[in-house]
């Protein structure tokens, strides 16, 4: 479990490296109920989208970012917001690397602890997606951000 007190601005999270396969892409698309052919049909991706292969869809990338962030925070970590911009596609055969840096640490007016984290998804050093997230972290051993509701939760 990561406590807010353990986190400092500028801190780097342990990178996650993953070898993407066709199964990764297709499983990710179907798990998010995304039936669009560019995520499972090679010929459509190449001939219609003009890219080299099927590629990871956006909702699945969001799931990868969530997995990365909550593996760091532990289960008490609660995502408040996530935003990302896709600059390039991630294809089968790519080794994608997610690497995060803490950009802010603060406690809001309700006492909720927050970390801002930027995560870059890169392939061979090229940035494919940039992500900015805000995640609530426990401020003490018995604090649980998931217990916050209504006006006590300001993501």
């Amino acid at each position, binding site marked *: 479990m990561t406590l807010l007190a353990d986190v400092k601005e500028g801190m780097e999270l342990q990178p996650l490296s993953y070898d993407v396969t066709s199964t990764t892409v297709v499983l990710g698309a179907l798990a998010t109920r995304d039936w669009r052919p560019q995520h499972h049909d090679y010929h459509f991706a190449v001939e219609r989208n003009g890219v080299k292969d099927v590629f990871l869809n956006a909702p699945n990338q969001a799931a990868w*970012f*969530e997995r990365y962030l909550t593996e760091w925070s532990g289960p008490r970590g609660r995502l408040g917001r996530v935003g990302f911009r*896709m600059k390039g596609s991630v294809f089968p055969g790519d080794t994608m690397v997610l690497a995060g840096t803490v950009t802010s640490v603060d406690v809001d007016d309700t006492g909720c602890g927050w970390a801002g984290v930027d995560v870059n998804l890169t392939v061979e050093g090229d940035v494919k997606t940039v992500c900015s997230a805000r995640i609530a972290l426990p401020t003490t051993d018995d604090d649980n951000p998931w217990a916050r509701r209504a006006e006590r939760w300001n993501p």
Partner: protein
Amino acid sequence: MTVLPTDVADLIGKVQYEEEAEFPVEQGYIWTACSSVENGNPLFWDDKVAAELTGGPIAPPTMISTWFRPHHWAPGRTQQALPLQVHFDMKERFDLPEAVMSDNSIVFHEPVRLGDRLTTRQVLRSVSEEKTTKLGIGRFWVIDVEYHNQRGELVAVGSWTGFGYRKAAS
């Protein structure tokens, strides 16, 4: 200042496509989604942890858009139902055969729980003037989607930026 066709300008800020998800939030999809990214967070796999932290099982927050994507086929349906219909409306309106999503942001509010029946509504926020990118010539648009549960609680607000385009002649 961008001058939009009147019919498109009239849609800016207007609530469209209020609809209920086709099925309730269910465990199998949660596990499939976690499996797809090897997410071992015990919150989604261990009922005791879920009971302790969230008062029972919940879905990963980033699954929010999964719950409103329509079945690929359903009895009686003559046309494929499309998620984020406003996006496809803009493609058709401007006769742009290709499109990609470039930006996505989601703000998470109340947790999504097993059995929830979510409702969504879409709001077109903006449409750009014609732009040229490496993909081709087209327009950017921003669409917000609000999600509520059956108790009327806001569970998330998503915002998508799409780029509809026509490939540049090679």
